[in-house]
């Protein structure tokens, strides 16, 4: 089936929030903190501006609590006399002219009496830098399995390593933006977002409005990658506050520079491994410490940390594991949700560490993985027994075969021996990604989906899960059509409007197809039962029954509904961090082939193979697109996407200086799926959206290590950094040469 909104997007007819027609409105703009920490002692308004023309909002204009409601209630909507990071919102302005607004915003000086900021999450904070609890730790989590100290003491070999990953900007094509206006007494907020009900809750809370007086509508969203998970609540609140004060519609759209500077990024991380092994390479003990930079407010850091530690030990069997995690407060712009949600960081470390172990033991990196990959019946670090029947070795074998790994290894040796300035190598990563919310999260969400039968016999899907380029509209259409046996043209997916659609949870965590799609199927069954049919009825019979029902019940809505139920046999204990962390894992093996130019130390990925088992593949084109997109995003994170920090804020907040891969930086990405239907996912599907960002970075770094002999431990592995590493490697070689 052709993607539903493809033509509108390809022809430029799709209307994003900035394209919506709007009459008699004001532009909104945010005035931000210039300093990372301190008391706001004055706000000076320029004297050359006609201020009476402007609407000005500060924290005193907030009707309810000055808080953007999320996990913790710590982040203000607008700073109230104290700032904790550069770019923290302090004032809001509105005016009919955007140009006048820009001049006015520039004329305002926010004066801050500086206090010492905490800017390095890796170092223990000095006494004057403590701002959260007694040690700036936002969240601590631990997983314990067996007795790691004893196992380490007994291990024949212990290999240690420290790994670091940098922040990453989402670079969704459409910058963030919102429109707030009134329909009578109802505040209507429209915009680019992943989670309409998060925005609704945040608006209700800070504006002290009951649910019936707030309506949130998602507009076609030009990419999200997690960047539009929690952040849109802020812009929605800002636009709403200006609309409340002015009584007029307000449009608040970030330009690229503001979006990159002020919105969230992927959490930077530092991961330490201490691994005990037998001489044969068997994993005996894994002691892992994961530290992430949370930035100046809690946001989603506790759950990012959770996913990071759960994935940190990799898809391997090991009886003695201890994983300690910390999310640190710093005076950086808060970090937030980003595709993978902590798992890419901890699996970069884990998969790079596997190759470091192999090199230390003088072992083949493939063999090391082969003997340690989880087999059915064995358990993960949290004690989740894997019993899904997936052949994880076959996934790896397929990747080796498709990439001609062995053959190329020999070819590389010959190439590298003869070429003056180029070096080639291949690297492997084997990894996994848990789909859906962690532990009891899905139960807590209580997601509901509705499937309505229209009087003309057409079907309408009602959910709060949104399309952002990943294919929700298409897959939901296909699932409903397949379940009821009707033509896809007879299925529509309702706009994500909180006045109409039930709360089916956020569009995050690779959960939309697998979990919400499953609810959709059950809601379709419910619809069928409501018109007196059993689950075998399909097609014309269903549509006729729907039309008949409407004739018999004129004016009444016909709606099937389903609510989330935990799959049988799943148990999770959030206090001990033991049990089934996810209903299902997707499994993967990726192989990167790189070429390093020793003159410039630039790394080019020249071939990429991505093999995964994601349950049943529902739409092969979309699935392949997700994998290829994730790989490209992973190439960027591994090699070039580097946030340069100035006082905890991004200094290179432009696409000229924050580089993402162009089509010329990306090789052909060859994608293959092994299918093993998951009984509790829609159509047998498991989550796929995030998996592909976990593997590319370690596969690439491992390939660079192979190609050059360098030992990269941190990404992005820019040419500047590789140059330093290669000098160290050369130096090491020279010393080795001169040794007796």
């Amino acid at each position, binding site marked *: 089936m052709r993607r539903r909104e493809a033509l509108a997007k390809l022809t430029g007819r799709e209307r994003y929030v900035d394209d919506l027609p709007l009459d008699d409105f004001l532009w909104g703009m945010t005035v931000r903190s210039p300093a990372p920490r301190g008391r706001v002692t004055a706000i000076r308004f320029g004297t050359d501006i006609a201020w009476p023309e402007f609407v000005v909002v500060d924290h005193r204009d907030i009707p309810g609590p000055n808080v953007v409601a999320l996990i913790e209630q710590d982040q203000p909507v607008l700073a109230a006399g104290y700032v904790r990071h550069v770019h923290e919102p302090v004032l809001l302005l509105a005016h009919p002219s955007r140009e006048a607004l820009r001049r006015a915003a520039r004329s305002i000086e926010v004066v801050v009496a500086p206090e010492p900021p905490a800017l390095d999450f890796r170092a223990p904070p000095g006494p004057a830098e403590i701002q959260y609890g007694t040690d700036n730790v936002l969240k601590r989590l631990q997983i314990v399995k067996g007795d790691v100290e004893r196992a380490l003491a007994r291990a024949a070999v212990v290999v240690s390593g420290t790994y670091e990953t940098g922040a990453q900007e989402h670079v969704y094509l459409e910058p963030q933006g919102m429109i707030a206006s009134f329909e009578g007494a109802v505040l209507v907020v429209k915009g680019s977002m992943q989670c309409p009900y998060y925005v609704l809750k945040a608006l209700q809370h800070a504006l002290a409005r009951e649910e019936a007086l707030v309506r949130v509508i998602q507009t076609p969203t030009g990419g999200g990658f997690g960047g539009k998970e929690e952040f849109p609540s802020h812009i929605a609140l800002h636009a709403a506050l200006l609309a409340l004060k002015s009584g007029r519609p307000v449009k608040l759209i970030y330009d690229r520079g503001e979006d990159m500077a002020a919105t969230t990024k992927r959490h930077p991380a530092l991961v330490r491994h201490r691994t005990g092994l037998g001489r044969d390479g068997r994993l005996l003990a894994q002691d892992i410490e994961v530290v992430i930079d949370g930035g100046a407010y809690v946001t989603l850091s506790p759950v990012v940390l959770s996913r990071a530690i759960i994935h940190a030990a990799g898809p391997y069997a090991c009886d003695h594991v201890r994983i300690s995690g910390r999310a640190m407060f710093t005076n950086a712009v808060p970090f937030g949700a980003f595709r993978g949600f902590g798992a890419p960081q901890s699996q970069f470390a884990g998969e790079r560490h596997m190759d470091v172990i192999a090199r230390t033991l003088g072992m083949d990196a493939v063999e090391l993985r082969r003997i340690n990959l989880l087999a059915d019946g064995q358990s993960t670090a949290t004690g989740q027994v894997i019993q899904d029947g997936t052949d994880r070795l076959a996934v790896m074998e397929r990747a080796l075969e498709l990439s001609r790994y062995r053959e190329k290894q020999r070819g590389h040796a010959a190439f590298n021996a003869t070429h003056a300035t180029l070096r080639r190598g291949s690297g492997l990563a084997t990894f996994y990604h848990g789909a859906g919310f962690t532990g009891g999260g899905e139960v807590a969400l209580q997601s509901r989906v509705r499937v309505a039968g229209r009087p003309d016999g057409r079907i309408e899907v009602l959910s709060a899960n949104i399309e952002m380029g990943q294919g929700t509209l298409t897959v939901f259409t296909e699932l409903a059509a397949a379940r009821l046996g009707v033509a896809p043209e007879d299925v529509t997916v309702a706009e994500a409007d909180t006045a109409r659609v039930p709360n089916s949870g956020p569009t995050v965590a690779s959960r939309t197809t697998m979990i919400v799609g499953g609810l959709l199927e059950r809601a379709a069954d419910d619809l069928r039962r409501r018109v007196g049919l059993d689950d075998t009825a399909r097609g014309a019979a269903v549509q006729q029954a729907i039309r008949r029902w409407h004739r018999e019940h004129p004016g009444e809505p016909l709606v099937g509904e389903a609510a989330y139920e935990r799959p049988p046999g799943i148990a999770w204990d959030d206090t001990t961090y033991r049990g089934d962390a996810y209903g299902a894992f997707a499994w993967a093996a990726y192989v990167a082939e790189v070429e390093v130019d020793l*003159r*410039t130390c630039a790394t080019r990925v020249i071939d990429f193979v991505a093999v995964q088992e994601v349950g049943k593949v529902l739409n092969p084109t979309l699935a392949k697109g997700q994998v290829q997109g994730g790989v490209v995003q992973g190439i960027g994170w591994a090699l070039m996407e580097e946030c340069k920090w100035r006082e905890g804020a991004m*200094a290179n907040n432009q696409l000229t*200086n924050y*580089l993402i891969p*162009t089509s010329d930086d990306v090789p052909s990405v060859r994608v293959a799926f092994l299918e093993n239907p998951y009984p509790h996912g829609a159509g047998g599907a498991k989550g796929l959206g995030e998996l592909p960002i976990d593997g590319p970075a370690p596969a690439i770094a491992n390939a660079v290590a192979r190609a050059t002999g360098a030992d990269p431990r941190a990404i992005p592995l820019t*040419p*500047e950094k590789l*140059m330093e590493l290669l000098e160290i490697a050369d130096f090491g070689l020279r010393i080795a040469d001169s040794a007796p």
Partner: protein
Amino acid sequence: MNVLLPGSLPEALDMLASDGAAIPIAGGTDLLVHWPVRVDAHDRTYVDLSRLDALKPLSWTADELVLGGLTTYWDVIRDARAAQEFPLLGNAARQVGAIQIQARGTWAGNIVNASPAADGVPVLMAYDAVVVLESRRGREQVPLDRFYSGYKEMRRHPDQLVVEIRIPRRPYSYQVFEKVGGRRAQAIAKVGLAVTRSGAGWRVVAASVAPTIRRCPAVERLLETGTAIASPEALLPAVARDVAPIDDIRSSARYRTHVMARLLYHDLRDFWGKRG
């Protein structure tokens, strides 16, 4: 924003002469970058050159290739003779932005924008290009390698337009252009290098390693004298005399210096004098 639209070169020169601070605008691909947020720039007066058709084409004389004041990268890319006689021009042009920028951006704009990281300037300089400036006061010719006097400083008065860029036609026995960016396309150079050899001698031009794009006389001398060079490191003293790179948001001084030495060493392997 005040935009003047002259219909002819004399009219444009009149406008520039009467408003001492007016800014010529050609493709606009430098001037309009980040336009919405550069509020101060909105109050200036601009002279839009787009109707000055006479400045658009490139032309050939018996001994020169003459680019007009509005000749674009694309004009050169499309010119088969330019590809044959001055391959570095097309080579560099194809690495400027992407096709949209190549179609609008002009060589003269690249020169007057005076970015130390420009891609058009180094190849022009390696071909001994001469900038022809015109104002109501008359015409003036300035060799490109003497055009810049400091960061964004140049021998052009506000009333002058670049009306031609003249490039002498000579046989070249060696020519190479290297652009090292943070990715393979759409990147601002971290190091740029254009090297040519003709009867007039060696020209080594470096970009992004000094406040201006400049010739590298010390390196050129090593080539002219056939000095023995056995490793990239052996080039570092000469490189240090010729350029003064900095640490900035795009790269580090150290990286730039070493890459420049390595590119020179490996690209010119056949030309360095041999020891003994």
